[in-house]
């Protein structure tokens, strides 16, 4: 239990770091933009023709822009701590409301992608690990090395053209039922499976070569029974632990894949906000993506702890 609390405490510290990093970057971004900020805000309120220096001065007083920068930074973080993320400069919508809708889509996509990748990668890797040096082992090695060299957007374009446009099996983009989820999730899952199949292959290889597995076979268990009772869970620990490292790939892929398939999630919104220089939205989306990364990491920590009785005993 102690190790678990320490690990999760580390994740909580990481979450605070994410907020500090994103918050500072966005605070700087606002200041780096050319021109007087009070004047810009006044112009967006009253229109560019109606604004004068008196109006700008009133805004400066009201928002406290005449205070020293470190006090403003403190106020910025105080807002952040209360989840007061402001309103989108582009749509005028509350950032928090927009994020709530996008997060739902992103969660659906990331959970589907992770589930698909676990259905594809580890079983194929396990087959290779059971017969190391066989033809399937060699083929899978080549396949996963090739897949790892293909960026997510190239996989996405290829899948979109074959499955959506040429064969018309699935829609090429948008949201709706389960059919819309399949293509973006599969794009992300293939990249993830390329790596997780290798980890599963090595883990299964190590289990099969271990003395306890040899003993299980010797006492008379068949291949399938020995693997089911003594192999799967042992081999699953490194696969799940590696999932934590793969989350980087998942979150990074989300930015690109959501944009390609017009999936209205957080990654798509982040790209739009960056292009539109909508800084409250940039801050909100980057913050939520970073926190999603930390949360999923904490969940993999927890899963490893539950899978491995040795860790729980510590």
């Amino acid at each position, binding site marked *: 239990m102690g190790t678990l609390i320490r690990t999760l405490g580390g994740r909580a510290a*990481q979450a605070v*770091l*994410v907020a*500090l*990093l*994103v918050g500072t*970057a*966005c605070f*700087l*971004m606002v200041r*780096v933009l050319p021109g007087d900020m009070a004047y810009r805000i006044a112009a967006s309120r009253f229109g560019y023709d109606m604004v004068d220096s008196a109006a700008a001065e009133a805004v400066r007083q009201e928002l406290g822009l005449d205070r020293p920068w470190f006090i403003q930074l403190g106020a910025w973080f105080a807002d952040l701590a209360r989840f007061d993320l402001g309103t989108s400069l582009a749509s005028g919508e509350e950032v928090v409301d927009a994020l709530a809708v996008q997060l739902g889509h992103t969660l659906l996509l990331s959970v589907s992608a992770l589930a698909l990748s676990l259905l594809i990668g580890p079983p194929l890797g396990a087959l290779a690990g059971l017969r190391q040096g066989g033809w399937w082992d060699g083929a899978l090695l080549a396949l996963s*090395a*090739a897949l*790892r*060299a*293909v*960026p*997510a*957007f*190239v996989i996405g*374009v*290829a899948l979109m*053209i074959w499955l959506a*446009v040429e064969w018309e099996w699935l829609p090429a983009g948008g949201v709706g039922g389960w059919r819309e989820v399949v293509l973006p999730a599969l794009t992300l899952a293939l990249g993830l499976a390329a*790596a997780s199949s*290798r*980890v599963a292959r*090595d883990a299964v290889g190590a289990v099969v070569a271990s003395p306890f597995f040899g003993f299980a076979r010797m006492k008379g268990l068949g291949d399938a029974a020995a693997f089911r009772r003594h192999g799967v869970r042992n081999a699953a620990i490194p696969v799940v632990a*590696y999932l934590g490292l793969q*989350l*980087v790939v998942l*979150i*990074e892929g989300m*930015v*690109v894949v959501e*944009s*390609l398939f017009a999936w209205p999630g957080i990654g798509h919104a*982040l*790209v739009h*906000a*960056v*292009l539109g*220089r909508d*800084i409250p939205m*940039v801050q909100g989306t*980057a913050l939520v*993506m*970073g926190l999603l*990364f*930390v949360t999923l990491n904490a969940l993999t920590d927890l899963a490893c702890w539950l899978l491995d009785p040795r860790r729980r005993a510590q």
Partner: protein
Amino acid sequence: MTLSPKRLLGGLLLAAVAGFALLAPLHGADPLKQNLSDALLPPGGAYPLGTDHLGRDLLARLAAGARLSFGFALLAAMAAALPGTLLGLLAALHGGWLERLLLGLADAVQALPALLLVVLVTAFAPGDFLPLYLGIALALWVEFFRISRNTAASILARPQVEAARLLGFGTGHILRRHLWPEVAPLIATLFAFAAGTAVTTIAALAFVGVGARPPIPEWGSMMTELLPYYAEAPLALLLPGLLIFLTVLGLHLLAGRGRA
């Protein structure tokens, strides 16, 4: 780095793409010159690889994209490797508060996924190349730092280093004779991976529109531009993707065993 068949294959792949990048200008076409009456031509005649939707020569554009990606990847990987390695060695040699400070900094950077960090940095000036370099260097220096620091720290704890110290050899000697021969091959491997990451990142960002902007001939943005025309010119869409694949595969093979 020892030469294995895999490394040789990786080197050959990279040499092929680099040769293409350097030899294609001999053909003499301008990658930016539009000729709308020659739009979306198949390969042949005056255009060895055909043209894009604005009638620009694809051979010239792909080669210009290769030069851009190679130059960018080398510079960005160097901008990450140099400070990362130096700080790693410094942290191992100095120890104490400096090491703790740098380790904390590395943790802070890695709290965010790398691409998210790069996107945040590019948000300061979308379309500019400088934030892209900075962002990628900022995200990638950590790996160089960690590997060089961990390797150096384990070497410094060995008895032969203590013996060298007792014999009166200075830090320079230990750095040259004990640390560098073991750290350098690891840095070379990381460098190849980092260059691969840089190639993918610049293409991915250009693909979603945050990185290099049209009309700059960049592989990722070429794919965005040509996606609507894939039925008329499938080859034009395939080629940039194929070049990214060959380049990254070459770099990964050159790097040697994966970092699973």
